[in-house]
């Protein structure tokens, strides 16, 4: 069950056309996400991680290669794929509840049902009592909780997270990561999370993909052997530290 591939990228390459010529963002990327697994994608800044994520979300057509969702090629955005951006993606004229409700509204859910589901999602991310707050009234961490609830709203099978907590302070980020892992353990969605934090990757993922600097390619695939749940005591596990070390090594090999 968990071994079945759900999202596959085959020989992806991508160039951006700019007024100053072509920029090669991705050289050659192939990857497979299996149902229910948590994968982290680590790489130096500007290595094309976000480009890759946008291609996997169907928002961008790669110059070469193709993406398969289940047994069909991906032609564009798909409701089975939810995406969460790094920051500032909440609509400021909508309350937290209204922001979470947006995907449901767009796919034609009846109002009361959509409101009930949005309410339940806000509770899952720990924001009960803030339903009617506007984004500007929420802290950065709370805003990202709302964004996560929204990404989950349409009940996607795959969740693509683009450095979701990168702009937050370390303590808030730790808390949100704990919440994320809790949600994942309950719902078992397939998650691909982009991060540039090696510890975060080793803590959260089943498998870590390491990218080279631009033009990006995957230089290493590291299985994380640490048993779950991985609490704060992970720091005392030699396996955890070995994983962190292995990721660092792979990043170094890539020249980052």
């Amino acid at each position, binding site marked *: 069950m968990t071994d079945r591939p759900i999202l596959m990228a085959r020989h992806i390459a991508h160039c951006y056309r700019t007024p100053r010529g072509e920029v090669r963002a991705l050289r050659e990327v192939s990857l497979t996400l299996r149902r229910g697994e948590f994968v982290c994608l680590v790489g130096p800044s500007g290595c094309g991680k976000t480009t890759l994520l946008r291609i996997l*979300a169907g928002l961008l057509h790669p110059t070469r290669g193709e993406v398969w969702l289940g047994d069909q090629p991906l032609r564009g955005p798909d409701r089975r794929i939810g995406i969460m951006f790094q920051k500032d993606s909440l*609509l400021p*004229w909508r309350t937290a509840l209204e922001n979470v409700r947006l995907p449901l509204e767009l796919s034609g859910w009846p109002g009361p049902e959509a409101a009930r589901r949005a309410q339940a999602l806000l509770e899952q991310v720990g924001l009960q009592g803030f339903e009617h707050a506007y984004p500007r009234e929420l802290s950065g961490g709370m805003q990202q909780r709302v964004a996560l609830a929204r990404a989950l709203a349409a009940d996607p099978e795959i969740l693509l997270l683009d450095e979701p907590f990168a702009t937050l302070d370390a303590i808030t980020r730790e808390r949100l990561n704990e919440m994320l892992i809790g949600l994942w353990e309950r719902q078992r969605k397939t998650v691909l999370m982009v991060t540039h934090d090696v510890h975060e990757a080793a803590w959260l993922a089943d498998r870590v993909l390491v990218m080279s600097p631009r033009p990006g390619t995957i230089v290493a695939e590291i299985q994380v052997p640490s048993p779950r749940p991985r609490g704060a005591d992970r720091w005392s596990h030699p396996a955890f530290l070995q994983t962190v070390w292995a990721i660092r090594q792979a990043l170094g090999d890539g020249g980052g």
Partner: protein
Amino acid sequence: MHGKATGWGTWHRTGIWLPRAGAALLFVLLWSLVVRLGDYPPFILPGPERVAARMWALAAEGSLWRHWWATAVEVGLGLGLGVAVGLILAYPLAHWRLFERMVAPYLVASQAVPIVAIAPLLIIWFGPGLLARVLVSALIAFFPVLIAAIAGFRQVPPEWRELFRSLQATRWQTFWKLEWPAALPTIFGGLKIGATLSVIGAFVGELISADRGIGFLIKQGQGLYDTPLVFGGILLLASQALLLYGVISALEHRWARR
């Protein structure tokens, strides 16, 4: 807590109105002082009491309200039409460069020619009735709304567009739930300019052809050297612009708060 909030609100309101009333009083006092010190004849510079008396007489015979209303209708219809045309044109202009390249020169030209030069033409074409005056008003009110709306639609952050694309929103959903609310604060900026211009447009239309309205009053006052009437007309025009501006600010506060 609640009582305190109300108390602050009341203070806040008097805090706005008190200085306003003070400034108005000061304005009238200075005006009166200038008239007295300069010893100007009333047909050059009438004092505030003479203007008030003239307006009172006009109100007593019942025509003040009639003229005010005639202009208000032109302004309302002119602004409404201008806003509608501005918004409808803004969407394709913001999204299709080719359309913009084709249409923009004509739009700019329509604004480069002074409205007083175009107004007689509109009156020849559409007759001396309400329609021509509404068109004059609409013609100068639409431009700032159009420019603001184009800017507003174009400034929608790409991250939000990407979000809507990832959620497979239709074009209509993207407009209604993203572009429109995102552009609204910018549009209100243009609307405020358009509103004051629509008063000017209606007035210009009346100067050229009308048998009622504030423009008609002022023209009549000019012909009869009834300067208090001209002054009164100017104050009436200002009252309409202020009223409109106030209404739009109130709507902005309700709909486009961030």
